[in-house]
């Protein structure tokens, strides 16, 4: 999908949220000079092409009780990366799983995943179990819990 100038106006207009009124797409259209049908079509097209990953509620997990937020990082031998990444990515409790670059010698870890839980002990026990069940005992890992949160907002687009 090729974005035009109209689309960028639409992207900027709705980035902070959809209007909470019964015809939200008409309200958006009025603000940027498009008709409701056009707004609906373009949002649909952006979802279809993956420019919008999701449309709906973005939660603040901390306020919903998910206070034990662990980033688990693994130093996976390159030849096992895809196998381990796919294994971890398929697990229910893992919400993100990415390969990122090592920064040697300070940072040897190349696979990052996120686990959001309600209690630290349960998250740690879960990680112990998955190390056993997925055959990851020989892959060094570290668990980094988050402490204070200083800033949380989505990215902004002009």
């Amino acid at each position, binding site marked *: 999908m090729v*974005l035009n100038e109209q689309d960028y106006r639409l*992207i900027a207009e709705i*980035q*902070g*949220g*959809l209007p*909470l009124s*019964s*015809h*939200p*797409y*008409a309200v958006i259209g009025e603000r940027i000079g498009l008709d*409701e049908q056009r707004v*609906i079509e373009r*949002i*649909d097209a952006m979802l279809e*092409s993956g*420019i*919008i*990953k*999701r*449309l*709906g*509620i*973005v*939660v*603040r997990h901390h*306020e*919903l009780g*998910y206070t034990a*937020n662990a980033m688990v990082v693994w130093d996976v031998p390159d030849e096992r*990366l895809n196998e381990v*990444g796919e294994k*971890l*990515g*398929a697990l229910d409790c893992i*919400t*993100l*799983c*990415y*390969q*990122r*670059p090592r*920064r040697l010698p*300070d*940072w040897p870890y190349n696979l*990052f995943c996120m686990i959001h839980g309600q209690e630290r002990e349960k998250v740690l026990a879960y990680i112990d179990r998955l190390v056993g069940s997925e055959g990851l005992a020989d892959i060094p890992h570290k668990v*980094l*819990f*988050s*402490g204070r*949160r*200083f*800033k*949380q*907002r*989505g*990215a*902004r*687009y002009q």
Partner: protein
Amino acid sequence: MSRELDSIDRAILNRYQGDFPICERPYQAAAEIIGIPESELIRRLERMLEQKQLSRFGPMYHAERLGGGLSLCAMRIPEEQYDQVTEQINAFPEVAHNYARDHAFNMWFVLATETPERIGSVLDEIERHTGFRVYNMPKLQEFFIGLKFEV
């Protein structure tokens, strides 16, 4: 906080972290699936936004497909300078969120820029401002993305 949510709030949260309808009366369509009136769905979303249980209600964009840059960055900051460096970093509009983590690499933030090239220059500016090295760790490969929370 989560104790204040009732079963209808939970149903809304579990159903609409995505898949919000795109039609003329989307709240009505969504409310029907939950089994409540449109006005009640709107009221509940307003309340959860006010109580900051929701960070927003709308689109989550794919930054790279929008032509933007996105990266996870980490820093090692001595405890006594942590607050000051946090302030310096959060003053950059490109810093989308910033978490402290319990590790020698104790500051983790996400940079979102309008162009991929801008990532490097923001990192340089942060290093110059703070005097500490920034470790840039952009995503190389994605194995899963489904950040949804059951409540």
